[in-house]
C-alpha cells in the first residue's frame, strides 16, 4: 500500500509578533507570532529547504517531484525545475508544478502517491495580506515536503487507508493574479459550506477506511478558512484533545503548505497503529485517512516541526512590509545588479542550483557544513536588505568558499561559528530570480 515514507518541513527563521501590527496599521494583528520568509526566500527556496530536510531524513531515489504553491515565483516557467536542480535529482526524474490554490497541494500529493516509484510532494507558500488585515496576521510562510511511495521504495511510515475528495464551485476567497492580497466573501457563507463539505468528506473517508470516529487518534483540519476549520473539528465527533493544533500561536496558516506541514507535525507525535485524518477545506474537501506503521517508531525527522516552531528570531513589522514589497523603502545607492545570464546559468546549473563542483569534484558542498574562517559586514554593497554579511567558510572535509550569510544578526557573527549551505534568491533583475547558495548559522538540531 502507498503511503508516507518521510517528511521535512521548513519554517523561516523570522517571526513577526502580531502585536506589532496594530500600532502601525491602526488595526489588525493579535497575539502570538507568525513566520516570515526572509527577503531572500520565496516559495521555491522554501520548498527546496523542506525537500532537503525530507531527503536528509529519508534518502530516496526520487522518480517524480510535485511542487505546489499558491504564490509561484514564476508563471509560465516551471518552478519545480529549480527545486529539482537544487536537489540534484536525476535528469529523468519528472518535475511538475501545481499552482494557484491550497487545493493544488492536495492534487500534487495525490498525483505523487499514485505515480510510479518514489515521489516527492513539496508544498510551499508565502501568505501575505494587506496591512492590518486578517490574512496578514493569520498567515504564515513555510514549506513541507512528503516523500511518498510504496513498500518497494522503503519502509512506509503511514499508509493511506482512504482518500475522499469532494469538489464544489463556490467563491469564498479569491485573488486576481498579480494582486498582493486575497479577498474574502462574508465569513459565515464559507463556514456553512465548508462545515457541510468537511463533515461529508470525513464520514465517507472513515467509512472507506473502516475506521470508527472514536478510533481517530489525530484529526487535522487544514484550509484557509480558520473559522470553518474550527467548526468542522468541533462537529466531527473527535474529542478536542485529539484535534491537531493548527500552529496559529507560533507559525500561522501556511496556506498550500499547511496540510503537509500539519500532517508532518502530527506524525512526529504519532505512535504505530494510530489513525490520522487529514481533512483539508479548499474549494471542496479532501479527507485522507492514514495508518501509522511500526516503522514510524524508527524514523527521525531532520528538523522536527515543534523544534522549528519554537525557534526563530523576531523581525520588525517594517522589515516584514519591506521584504514583501508592501512598503517601498529607499533602495541602496548602488547600481542594481544585472540579471543573470540564462545561458551561463544553464551551463553552470550544477554549481548554481546544486552547489556542486564540476564533474570529478569530490562532493557537492550543499550537504556539507563548515566553519567561519573570516567574515565581514558590508554596508556599501548592494543588497535587498543591507547590510550584507559575507564569510569565508572552510567546509568540513576540505574546501573553502567565500559565501554570503543569511538569517544572521550581523553583530553576533564570529570566527569559528558553524554554518550550513542554504538555497536562496540573491536578487531579482528584469524579473529573473537569481538563485544561489548562501550559508546560515547551524542552529539547534539542524546540523547533520
Amino acid at each position, binding site marked *: 500500500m502507498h503511503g508516507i515514507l518521510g517528511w521535512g518541513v521548513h519554517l523561516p527563521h523570522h517571526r513577526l509578533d502580531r502585536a506589532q501590527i496594530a500600532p502601525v496599521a491602526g488595526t489588525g494583528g493579535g497575539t502570538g507570532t507568525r513566520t516570515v520568509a526572509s527577503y531572500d526566500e520565496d516559495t521555491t527556496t522554501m520548498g527546496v529547504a523542506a525537500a532537503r530536510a525530507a531527503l536528509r531524513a529519508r534518502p530516496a531515489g526520487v522518480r517524480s517531484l510535485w511542487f505546489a504553491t499558491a504564490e509561484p515565483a514564476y508563471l509560465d516557467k516551471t518552478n519545480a525545475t529549480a527545486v529539482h536542480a537544487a536537489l540534484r535529482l536525476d535528469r529523468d526524474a519528472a518535475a511538475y508544478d501545481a499552482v494557484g490554490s491550497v487545493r493544488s497541494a492536495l492534487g500534487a500529493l495525490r498525483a505523487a502517491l499514485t505515480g510510479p516509484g518514489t515521489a516527492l510532494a513539496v508544498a510551499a507558500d508565502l501568505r501575505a495580506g494587506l496591512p492590518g488585515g486578517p490574512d496578514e496576521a493569520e498567515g504564515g510562510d513555510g514549506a513541507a515536503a512528503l516523500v511518498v511511495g510504496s513498500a518497494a521504495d522503503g519502509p512506509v511510515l503511514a499508509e493511506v487507508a482512504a482518500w475522499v475528495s469532494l469538489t464544489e464551485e463556490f467563491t469564498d476567497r479569491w485573488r486576481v493574479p498579480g494582486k498582493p492580497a486575497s479577498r474574502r466573501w462574508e465569513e459565515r457563507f464559507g463556514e456553512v459550506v465548508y462545515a457541510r463539505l468537511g463533515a461529508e468528506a470525513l464520514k465517507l473517508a472513515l467509512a472507506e477506511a473502516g475506521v470508527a470516529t472514536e478510533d481517530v487518534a489525530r484529526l487535522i483540519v487544514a484550509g484557509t478558512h480558520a473559522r470553518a476549520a474550527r467548526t468542522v473539528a468541533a462537529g466531527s465527533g473527535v474529542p478536542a484533545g485529539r484535534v491537531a493544533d493548527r500552529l496559529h500561536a507560533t507559525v500561522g496558516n501556511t496556506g498550500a503548505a499547511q496540510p503537509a506541514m500539519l500532517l508532518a507535525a502530527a506524525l512526529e507525535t504519532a505512535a504505530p497503529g494510530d489513525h490520522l485524518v487529514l481533512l483539508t477545506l479548499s474549494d471542496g474537501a479532501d479527507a485522507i485517512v492514514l495508518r501509522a506503521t511500526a516503522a514510524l517508531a524508527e524514523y527521525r525527522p531532520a528538523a522536527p516541526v515543534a523544534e522549528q516552531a519554537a525557534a526563530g528570531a523576531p523581525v520588525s513589522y517594517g522589515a516584514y512590509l519591506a521584504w514583501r514589497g508592501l512598503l517601498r523603502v529607499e533602495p541602496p545607492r548602488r547600481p542594481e545588479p544585472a540579471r543573470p*545570464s540564462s545561458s*551561463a546559468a544553464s551551463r*553552470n546549473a550544477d*554549481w548554481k542550483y546544486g552547489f556542486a563542483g564540476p564533474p570529478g569534484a569530490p562532493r557537492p558542498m550543499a550537504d556539507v557544513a563548515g566553519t567561519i574562517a573570516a567574515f565581514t559586514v*558590508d*554596508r*556599501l554593497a548592494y543588497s535587498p536588505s543591507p547590510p550584507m554579511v559575507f564569510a*569565508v567558510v572552510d567546509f568540513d572535509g576540505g574546501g573553502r568558499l*567565500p559565501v554570503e550569510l543569511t538569517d544572521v544578526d550581523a553583530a553576533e557573527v564570529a570566527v569559528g561559528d558553524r554554518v550550513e549551505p542554504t538555497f536562496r534568491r540573491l536578487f531579482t533583475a528584469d524579473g529573473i530570480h537569481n538563485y544561489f547558495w548562501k550559508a546560515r548559522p547551524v542552529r539547534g538540531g539542524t546540523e547533520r
Partner: protein
Amino acid sequence: MGSHGIKDRVAIVGMGCTRFTEHWDKGVDELLLAATGDAFASAGVDKEQVDAYWLGTAQSGMSGLTLSRPLRLRDKPVTRVENFCATGSEALRQAAYAVASGAYDMAMAVGVEKVKDSGYQGLNAFPIPGDGTARTLTAAAMFSMVAPAYADRYGVSEQEMRTVLARIAAKNHANGARNPRAQFRREMSVERLCAMPAVAGGLSVFDCAGVADGSAAAIVVRAEDAHRYTDRPLYIKALSFVAGDGGGLTDPAYDYTTFPEVAASAADAYAQAGVTSPRDELAMAEVHDCFTPTELVLLEDLGFAERGQAWKEVLAGGYDLDGALPVNPDGGLKACGHPVGASGLRMMFEAWLQLRGEAPDERRISTYGSRSLALTHNLGGYPGEMVSFVSIVGV
C-alpha cells in the same frame, strides 16, 4: 625561460598628471588632453614624434579610439589596455617593452578614468554577463578582512590595530595636504580617523581610497636617446607583473595577512633591478593603498618590514615623509583618489618629481640626494585573487 627585465634600456623623459579630483567640468577627452599635453611639453616633443600609444582605462572608454580621437592622432598605433586597478601601470609596461624591443623610438603611456559620471558613489564595475553566482560584496569589504586577520596573527589588539590603520591614513592625508594634485588636501588626525563609523568590516570611509577623476601620462624612449629630451631621465630598472590564479579564495591555508601575488611581483622586480635590500636601497615607494590595511600588508609583502613588524614601524613613523623609507609621499590613493586607469602613472609621476628634486620642499622625501631608486606598486582585484605590478625606477 626567465624574467630578464629591461634594466636601464628604457627611460621616461616626460610626464604629465592632472589634478585628481571630482572633475565635474571635464570629461575623458579633456583629461586626456591635459595629461598628454603636459607630458609632451615636459619632454619637449609633439604628438607626431610619438610613434605608438598605449592607453590604460578600466571602463571609461574602449579601444585606442578613446585616445586617438581627442588627440587627433592619424596613422598611429593606439592600444587600449585594461588590467583592473593596475591598468595605468600596464600601459607603461607595454609602452616600455615596445621601445625596448626596437619596434618604436618613442612611445607614450596614458592612463585615464572618469569615475564620477556614474551617478553612484565608489567604483562600480561593468557587469559582465554571468551565471549570477559571482561575489557581490565590495572591495572595501573584501580588504576589511585583512585587518582582523593580521591583528589575530600577530597579536595586535583591536584598539592598536585601529590606531595603526588611522596612522596610515593620517600619514597619507598629511602628504596629500602638501600635494596640489591630490583630491583631499586636509590633514586628518589619528583621533578623528579612529572615531569614524565602520562601513565595511571595521573600515570607515576614511580607510578607503578617495574616488576621483584624473589622468596621467609618460613618454618613454631608449635609454641612450634619453638625454636628447631631458637632463634628468628616469631609467626603468624593473617592471614586473603577476596575475594570480584566484586560488587564495578557495585555499584554506590562505589567511588574509599577505598578498602572494605582490610578494612574487616584488621578488621579480628586485631581481630585475638587482635590489637586495629594498628597505636600505629605495628612496621612496608609492604603494597601492586602496584601503589602509592593504598598505599595512604591502609594507611587508614588498619587503619594507619583516612579517608582523610593519604595524610597529607605521606607529614609529618609519614611512612618513621624514621617515627612513617614505611611502606614498604624494598622499597615495587615500588622498589622491583612485581614477583606476590613471593611478599607476600618478605613482610614477611622484617618483618623477621626487627623484628629480622637483617635489615642493614641504613634501620632499627625507632620502632625497642620498638614494636614487623609487618603487611603484599597483594592484587590482581582491585578497586571494589579484594582479600585482611593481616597478623600480632610478635617476
